[in-house]
């Protein structure tokens, strides 16, 4: 099982690195949308600081939606998804490996980038570690949710907009706890509570999510 997990993981990583241009798209989207806010709202640092964490969270949410909504589509089209399903590998394990691979190559760069963007929104340096840590804890859950959306819409010719519709309402707790952690950090209070809650959600999503995703994929390839 471990062998199969790493086989799927390394395969997807390899493919991702051979298509680097596609990797960069969600990242560019993230940067561009985030830089639209100072243009649209106000370049005033005071103002930017108050909306900064919220803006970055929402944009990170949308970028990961963009990055992962087609997670299973290529595999379904070339038939490797049905081969994976027929193989002795439990589908949940394969799903987890795929989500892990895409989290590593698309979401982690995003998390690395966020503190820099946060600085441009005049957020104090002190909250940057909290922000990065909160994002690291929240994005696995987010990836599982988007992967679920991708799996649910696999049978449709186009996923796109509807994946957002399915996934975004479910991400409300992540957004709430994530921005809460940063707000508490800004006031210099303990940020442990929301971070623990984000970690709890990640455990829940990573343990139950792959089962739901595997079930959805079964319907999708039929």
């Amino acid at each position: 099982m471990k062998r199969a997990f790493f086989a799927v993981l390394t395969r997807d990583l390899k493919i991702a690195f051979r298509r680097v241009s596609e990797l960069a798209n969600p990242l560019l989207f993230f940067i561009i949308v985030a830089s639209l806010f100072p243009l649209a709202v106000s370049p005033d640092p005071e103002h930017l600081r108050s909306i900064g964490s919220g803006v970055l969270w929402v944009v990170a949410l949308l970028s990961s939606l963009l990055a992962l909504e087609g997670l299973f589509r290529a595999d379904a089209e070339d038939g490797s998804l049905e081969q994976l399903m027929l193989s002795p590998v439990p589908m949940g394990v394969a799903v987890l490996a795929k989500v892990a691979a895409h989290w590593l190559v698309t979401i982690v760069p995003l998390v690395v980038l966020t503190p820099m963007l946060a600085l441009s929104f005049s957020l104090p340096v002190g909250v940057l570690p909290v922000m990065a840590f909160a994002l690291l804890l929240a994005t696995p859950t987010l990836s599982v949710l988007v992967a679920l959306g991708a799996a649910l819409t696999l049978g449709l010719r186009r996923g796109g907009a509807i994946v957002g519709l399915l996934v975004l309402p479910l991400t409300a707790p992540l957004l709430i706890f994530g921005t809460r952690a940063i707000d508490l950090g800004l006031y210099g209070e303990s940020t442990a509570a929301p971070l623990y809650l984000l970690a709890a959600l990640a455990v829940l999503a990573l343990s139950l999510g792959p089962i739901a995703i595997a079930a959805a994929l079964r319907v999708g390839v039929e």
Partner: protein
Amino acid sequence: MLSAENVAIWRGDRCLFEGLTFGLHPGQLALLVGPNGAGKTSLLRVLAGLASPTFGRALWHGVPVDALTPELRGQIAYRGHLDGLKKDLTVGENLHFHAAIWGGSADLALLTDLKLEAQADVRARYLSAGQRRRAALVSLRVAPSPLWILDEPMTNLDVDGRATVLRWTDQHLANGGCAVVATHQPQEFERRGALVIEL
């Protein structure tokens, strides 16, 4: 080993076929023939456990195919219309991946058998349709699968490729495996005393 009980498949409000019952014992070949749209592919997907029939059920070793244990599931090899190759990986890498998830060993001699040894380091994207089809056949052999389910295995293959498929099938049957093959050229397989299922 493989059996179908009273299987019926409906597409929307239309019945493709119904009341299909058959059993396969080790070393036996079943040929699935019928015009386009008769439900050959649908039936094969049901037998492989990828889809569920409208009525009836398919069993492998007495277990419904959509509820197989991982070990039993690993005994069934299915080759459909899609070749299941990642286009951004080389033929060799695809072979290694198959071996890793099916629990077999990546034997590069298989590529020689398929006359693909020169393409081992070529990405699947740059293969011709026929070469891709051959590369897909590798997965039948990376791990021993007692049951082969093949959907039009001869498509896009040249004389040589067809001969390989027949040779492999013969060896497979001689070793006690069984196979279900959907084909438009049943005469190619017929001399092997197959069970012919007409849809």
